[in-house]
């Protein structure tokens, strides 16, 4: 079903607010990962404000859809989305990375409502998602599992162990999304250690692969809808994204993978995100 233009506009303004949160919270924390948080904003907006069947008043609702962030360093975009949904108050975002905070530098399932699984050590999230999807299948549950992976993360061998077993166990209740921004902390992915061609690799591992513009919410949602109709295999949505998207001086610069903006840079970035 096509989305109304009002709905799309509201999702886009959500994306803008989440970008502002990301910049503010990382600026306040003085450390963190803006680049890969900004690249995944539309992906999380499509999921949290349209696709996921969740209840923020009951984070552990047994029949909820599950979203896992395997690229755990992008925690700020997850926290911002969860706060906007209402899992906790927006003002908590100010406590990111602070001693005693519910918002750890990398996601901690024991501290943060809505965080399904702890992550941060790359390469593990898809395997975990597989396990959840297998449990759902065992019990004939209607809920679905979504996992966000990074492109640099695909250098981890375990990602391909998980890719193999998701196809082997025909996990069509699982949909992974790849934040394909082309950069990792040391530089361009194909220069550091090329995992390319990514879409072909996932297809070769037995996945249904859909490639979209990862900043086009309509395209992401259409792909998520399509994934639900695919039976007998898991779906990978390859989202072509721009690292640092929305902040001109961060866009396509790997230096902003894991660096906080200073107060002047926060101000400049927020001006661009008005």
């Amino acid at each position, binding site marked *: 079903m096509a989305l109304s233009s009002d709905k799309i506009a509201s999702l886009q303004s959500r994306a803008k607010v989440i970008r502002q949160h990301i910049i503010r919270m990382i600026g306040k924390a003085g450390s963190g990962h803006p680049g890969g948080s900004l690249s995944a904003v539309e992906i999380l907006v499509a999921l949290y404000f349209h696709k996921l069947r969740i209840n923020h008043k009951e984070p552990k609702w047994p029949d909820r859809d599950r979203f896992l962030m395997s690229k755990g360093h992008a925690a700020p975009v997850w926290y911002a989305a969860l706060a906007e949904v209402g899992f906790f108050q927006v003002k908590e975002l100010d406590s990111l990375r602070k001693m005693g905070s519910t918002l750890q530098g990398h996601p901690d399932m024991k501290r943060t409502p809505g965080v399904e699984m702890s992550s941060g050590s790359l390469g593990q999230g898809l*395997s975990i998602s597989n396990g959840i999807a297998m449990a759902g299948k*065992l019990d004939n549950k209607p809920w679905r599992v979504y996992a966000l992976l990074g492109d640099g993360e695909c250098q981890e061998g375990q990602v391909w*162990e998980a890719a193999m077993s998701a196809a082997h166990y025909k996990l069509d209740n699982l949909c992974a999304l790849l934040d394909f921004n082309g950069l990792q902390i040391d530089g361009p992915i194909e220069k550091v250690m090329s995992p390319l061609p990514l879409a072909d690799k996932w297809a070769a591992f037995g996945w249904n692969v859909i490639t979209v513009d990862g900043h086009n919410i309509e395209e992401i949602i259409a792909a998520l809808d399509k994934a639900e109709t695919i039976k007998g295999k898991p779906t990978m949505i390859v989202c072509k994204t721009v690292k640092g998207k929305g902040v001109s001086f961060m866009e396509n610069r790997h230096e902003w993978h894991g660096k906080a903006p200073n107060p002047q840079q926060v101000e400049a970035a927020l001006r661009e995100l008005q």
Partner: protein
Amino acid sequence: MPELKCTREACGNALVELGRANKDIVVLSADLAGSTKAEDFGKVFPERFFNMGIAEANMMNTAAGLAAAGKIPFATTFAIFASGRAWEQIRNTIAYGNLNVKIIATHGGISVGPDGASHQGIEDIALMRMIPGMTVLVPCDAVETPKALFAASEYKGPVYVRLARLKIPIITQLTDSFVIGKFNVLKEGADATIIACGVMVAPALNAAETLIKEGIKATVINAYSIKPLDEERIISYAKKTGAIVTAEEHLATGGLGSAVADILAANCPAPLEMVAIKDRFGQSGEPDELMKEYRLTSEDIIKAAKKAFARKKQ
């Protein structure tokens, strides 16, 4: 002569029994289902058995996901691969998330035999014991093994259970208790205390028999719960007997002996002798040849007990 039986065989049967009692029990295997006896479960409950292939890291995280969705997964493979290959998955996902995953590690120790050093897990207790919140159990025979599995399945949180490959004597009774965090005293004696785990408990009992003839009455403790340890018993027997021997089929570094040493040093320093592997890898050989070569026999326990007893008098 007591009956001989493999702990891993007892484990296979226990998993089936657990599967019957609770439909949330699932079993994962990283190939090797025939060797670990996980295949027994697979035959009875094929829909709840997942062979994950030769990919231990993926298996541990898949188990984590199953646990997060309410299942009680038992992930099975050899001790070296469970604790070594997948250590970081266990640490960062299973233990950090306090997920209800049970890791069943067969083929612990050098008594694995002819397969050699690459397949002999001799550091697994240390690797698992150091992880915050991890429970580590080492049952000593085929009667105690099912109790360890039942206790693990009832406990909420991650548990590592270490089993052996070879047939070992049955020395415990069905009626003996098994409580996580407790030890069982198998024999009382006032002169020294032998604290042993796993396959070393039977030789410890034999050693105590011989020691009596030489005038040393030794207590023998079955330390099946390596973490949490039965701190109270260690302290009370250290005070009562004044000389301690630990016996384990594991490196001296970081295992049962190290754990006992920590407790003694902090509470009641007493002479301690460790019967364990001393900073070297295993090798191919028959299990009994290897146990002799690596000083893990009842004779070695006797020597250690005499030494600890003599040190007490100094």
